[in-house]
């Protein structure tokens, strides 16, 4: 393992400290926690709070999206480990302005349980809570007999939607409806070239040969659906796009937003090459995205790979929310 760190167990607190000291204009640390809240308290007044978070290792998620127009607070757990309820609760309390708090949770058993316990704690304090469990990863079957689909890069788009709506005065119930309506229209699928190494573990989560790739890998190195030899960018795009097409039934009459997301170690150069092939292949389907982002938004430490998120903008408001101005580190 070769990483720019000190003691592996201090990675999260030192990262959080570095982040808040580097960007005091956006966020500050909530004392005694690894949770961060907007420094511009005024921007939260009279509005529903938006809180997200999860294990660390997905930077700039989630703290990079704290700021006016997006998240009120975010909680950083240990690397790839859900944050604990007391810390989530601290983030909820710091975000509550009397209008309630909306939680954006990724669908992992740990996150769901810890956020659920924090919700119970907040409700004892008479803070109204609603939430959405994001499950945009179409790599795994949605089954009653598993944890179900994972929450991955599409979560960032969910942050943007509810953040923009909350900033414009949406109520807790309206945010819940918005999130529930939009969720089935957001689909993500990834391909990995190499695995991530959790600092405290010191070894990669899985091993791919030099010339191997795996389709459908999750953001904590969860297994995907197929391994094969490395392909050209064109062929990777056609594999991932075909999966998205099966799910969303891409239609030239619809409007789409697209997020090409680097998993950590994949250079922007390759992400732009992938985008070039993606836009070509979408064009062949007579689709021109009306909104697009390319870059590292939901990473998996130093995993190499890319995820593709397509969002079918079935409601006109959704595009407006995506384009709504924000003041954050990373959007």
């Amino acid at each position, binding site marked *: 393992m070769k990483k720019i760190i000190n003691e592996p167990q201090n990675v999260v607190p030192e990262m959080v400290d570095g982040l808040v000291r580097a960007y005091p204009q956006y966020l500050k640390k909530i004392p005694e926690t690894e949770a961060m809240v907007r420094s511009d308290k005024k921007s939260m007044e009279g509005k529903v709070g938006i809180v997200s978070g999860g294990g660390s290792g997905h930077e700039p998620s989630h703290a990079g999206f704290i700021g006016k127009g997006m998240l009120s607070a975010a909680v950083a757990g240990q690397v790839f480990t859900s944050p*604990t309820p007391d810390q989530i609760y601290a983030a909820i309390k710091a975000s509550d302005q009397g209008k309630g708090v909306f939680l954006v949770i990724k669908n992992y*058993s*740990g996150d769901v*349980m*810890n956020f*659920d*316990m924090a919700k119970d704690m907040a409700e004892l304090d008479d803070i109204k809570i609603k939430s959405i469990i994001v499950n945009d990863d179409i790599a795994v079957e949605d089954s009653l007999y598993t944890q179900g689909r994972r929450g991955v890069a599409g979560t960032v788009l969910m942050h943007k939607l509810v953040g923009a709506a909350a900033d414009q005065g949406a109520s807790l119930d309206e945010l819940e409806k918005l999130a529930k309506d939009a969720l089935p229209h957001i689909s993500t699928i990834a391909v990995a070239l190499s695995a991530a190494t*959790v600092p405290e573990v010191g*070894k990669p989560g899985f091993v791919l040969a030099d010339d191997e790739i795996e389709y459908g890998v999750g953001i904590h190195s969860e297994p995907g659906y197929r391994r094969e030899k490395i392909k050209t960018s064109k062929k990777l795009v056609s594999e991932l796009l075909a999966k998205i097409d099966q799910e969303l039934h891409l239609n030239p009459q619809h409007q789409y937003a697209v997020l090409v997301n680097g998993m950590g170690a994949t250079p922007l150069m390759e992400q732009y090459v992938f985008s070039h092939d993606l836009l070509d292949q979408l064009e062949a389907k007579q689709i021109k995205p009306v909104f697009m982002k390319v870059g590292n938004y939901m990473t998996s430490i130093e995993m190499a790979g890319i995820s593709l998120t397509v969002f079918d903008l079935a409601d006109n408001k959704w595009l407006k929310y995506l384009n709504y101005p924000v003041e954050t580190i990373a959007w």
Partner: protein
Amino acid sequence: MLTTEITQEWMDKFYHKIEENKDYLSELDTPIGDGDHGNNMMRGMEGVKQGLAKLQKPDLKTILKNIAMSLISKVGGASGPLYGTAFLEMAKKCGETQDINALINAALDGIKKRGGATEGDKTMVDVWSPVAQTNEITQKVIDDAIASTKDMLARKGRASYLGERSIGHLDPGAVSSGYLFTALLETEASL
């Protein structure tokens, strides 16, 4: 009967088992999870140890609640809420009865409710359940329960994404739960 003395000794022994087997638990977690169960449990038990050391002449409920809160606030992931809920349920129940079997049953109900898992899902429930059902906890009951998770197909948590590939691996949460009950057995024998 669970007493304050037994509980403190029990946690001390559990702490040492986690310490000794930290790397093994993380290794078990690597093929079917994300390789950090040992580290997470160790962080939790450090919290439990420090939390208990601060208490002065606590009653049983205070001890159990203290253990629960340390686990909930230190472990994280799925194990934190599940182990935390187990001790929280024991804390709630111990005013009514200190019978160990009754307390373990209350904890098991809490774990099932919190995680939504049931017997056969390849989780810690597959150790807690046989232990809760037996009249006398023995090392064999514990070992058989742990071993039974090997051939199961994971239906909950991160291991569930592996589907068939989860078969052939022990469940790390079942193994750490096994240490918890072995620690209890050893405590009862030593007092």
